[in-house]
């Protein structure tokens, strides 16, 4: 026999109690993982933003456009290596509840975004055709689209019927990159605007600026904004990360609440496990006294009590982590399409969940351990029950 076997036997002494505690921990770990995955998904855009990219938008609001003429001026700012632009197109494809980003972009847009990997032949085909589009692999899978297929959209920001031909399907470079974007030629929109609403032609939503050295980002931002100071369309230039974070700020309170709730769940389960361990220790006061009588030291008792608590926590978190994978996948399926294009159970989330469970296991052992170590052998042997 070994101490580990004794821990196992003690765990199995009250099978129902141990099982309920393990299930409770597993549910807590699943909930924690799901909540943290949602928080991570919200932050995905921020995490994938490039350090060497700046975003220049209208100083008043993102919804106001900037003149196309700014591109040339921005490109001459020292430290700027490339400039591209994009418009938020909006529109409805098949079902208005199925969201994905639709962007009218300049021809060099995907040069600045190497994380969207497009095969060269597809890129060449895209560039040849005015109403061509490039879609993400997830979008292709979701709508069963293939190269050459037509996509018809109802415009809202840019009213009317719009028709696109799929000429490219990009693959995200890694799991943090959104695989559900829709890119098409900015000129396609602009040409139609020239015909239908000329005063909307020649405007872009925002500029993306690629910089030579990230150490120059602040200076470049200032230089760009200074260029258009006191003009009818002043700019606000910031890093792509800050730009993405400004979107997150709108949901900041919700994300903070989700973060807090996920840790509250861990706190609750600590109380559950702590209660289980306290009950176990109270029932075994006499046994611990016998252990001490036989020569077992405080070190051994610590191993027995903390070991049992840790074993329950580890079992619960192990089961929870295993179930978290299908639970996250199921959650992703149940959510409206496009809410979270990147919804992956990340390794750091799992490590955090496991670390939290192990911490709970240790913390739950503290009180019963303290009690059993403080109880003298004589008092322990007097205990009835």
């Amino acid at each position, binding site marked *: *026999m070994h101490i580990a076997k004794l821990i196992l036997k003690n765990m199995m002494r009250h099978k129902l109690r141990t099982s309920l505690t393990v299930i409770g921990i597993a549910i807590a770990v699943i909930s924690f993982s799901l909540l943290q995955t949602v928080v991570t998904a919200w932050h995905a855009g921020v995490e994938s933003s490039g350090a060497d990219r700046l975003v220049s938008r209208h100083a008043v609001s993102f919804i106001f456009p900037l003149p196309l003429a700014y591109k040339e001026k921005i490109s001459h700012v020292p430290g700027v290596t490339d400039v591209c632009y994009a418009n938020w197109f909006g529109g409805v494809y098949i079902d208005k509840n199925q969201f994905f980003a639709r962007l009218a972009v300049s021809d060099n847009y995907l040069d600045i975004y190497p994380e969207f990997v497009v095969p060269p032949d597809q890129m060449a085909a895209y560039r040849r055709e005015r109403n061509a589009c490039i879609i993400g692999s997830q979008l292709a899978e979701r709508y069963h689209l293939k190269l050459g297929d037509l996509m018809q959209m109802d415009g809202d920001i840019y009213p009317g019927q719009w028709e696109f031909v799929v000429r490219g399907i990009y693959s995200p470079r890694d799991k943090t990159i959104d695989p559900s974007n829709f890119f098409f030629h900015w000129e396609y929109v602009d040409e139609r605007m020239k015909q239908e609403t000329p005063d909307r032609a020649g405007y872009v939503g925002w500029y993306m600026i690629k910089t030579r050295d990230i150490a120059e980002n602040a200076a470049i931002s200032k230089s760009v904004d200074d260029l258009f100071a006191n003009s009818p369309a002043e700019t606000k230039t910031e890093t792509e990360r800050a730009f993405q974070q400004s979107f997150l700020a709108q949901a900041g309170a919700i994300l903070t609440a989700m973060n807090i709730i996920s840790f509250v769940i861990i706190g609750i389960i600590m109380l559950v496990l702590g209660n289980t361990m306290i009950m176990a220790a109270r029932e075994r006061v006499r046994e611990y006294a016998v*252990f*001490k009588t*036989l*020569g*077992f030291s405080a070190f051994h008792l610590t191993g027995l009590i903390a070991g049992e608590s840790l074993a329950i926590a580890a079992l619960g978190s192990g089961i929870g982590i295993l179930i978290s994978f299908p639970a996250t996948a199921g959650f992703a399926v149940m959510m409206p399409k496009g809410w979270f294009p990147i919804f992956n159970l990340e390794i750091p989330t799992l490590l955090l969940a496991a670390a939290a469970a192990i911490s709970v296991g240790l913390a739950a052992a503290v009180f019963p351990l303290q009690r059993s170590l403080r109880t*003298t052998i*004589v008092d322990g042997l007097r205990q009835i029950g």
Partner: protein
Amino acid sequence: MATASPIVSLNNVSKSYKRDSNVIPVLKNISFEIPEGEFLGLMGPSGSGKTTLLNLIAGIDRPSAGSLTVCGREVSALSETELARWRSNTVGFVFQFYNLLPVLTAFENVELPLLLTKLSKKERREHVELSLKVVGLEDRMHHYPKQLSGGQEQRVAIARAIVTDPSLIVADEPTGDLDKVSAEEILRLIGRLNTEYRKTIIMVTHDPRAAERAHKVRHLDKGELS
């Protein structure tokens, strides 16, 4: 016949407990010696301090005053860790309510003290089997306590007490929870440990028939030896 050297020596040992602001004296200036190989019975009314005296000798409690030497060690001078190690090597314990771990088999209960030694698994098995054989339970080694009678449980407890081959065995009312037949078996077994295996036995008992087995009986009353 030469007098055996004392295995236990108490010199003006006193013990008192503090309950709130009250100090309750339990043992008062006890001085006596127990020679090696002795079978001593400790008798006295409830609250006379028998179990307290046994606990002091066994090193599971400390005297408030006086000196106590057991098996050549000044017990009251040992730290908690040293005392725990000393107990595991020197003293075997038999309790009134057996105090076996319900989740362990008879074999595993007896093996428990050996987990603190450096013996190999094979050596531990040999020791345990021998101990269970001494108490006549080699055929019940894989039974759990709840599958054994009270007498059998106490025999397992005795096997656990002797498995490390201690010099001293302390027994606190070992027949207090047993019927007459089982009690007789246990007393016979304890007697054999003394005569055949030369163990020094100190047994606290209320039962005059149990005390008859002892070579010598000391009486405690209100914390004083008579």
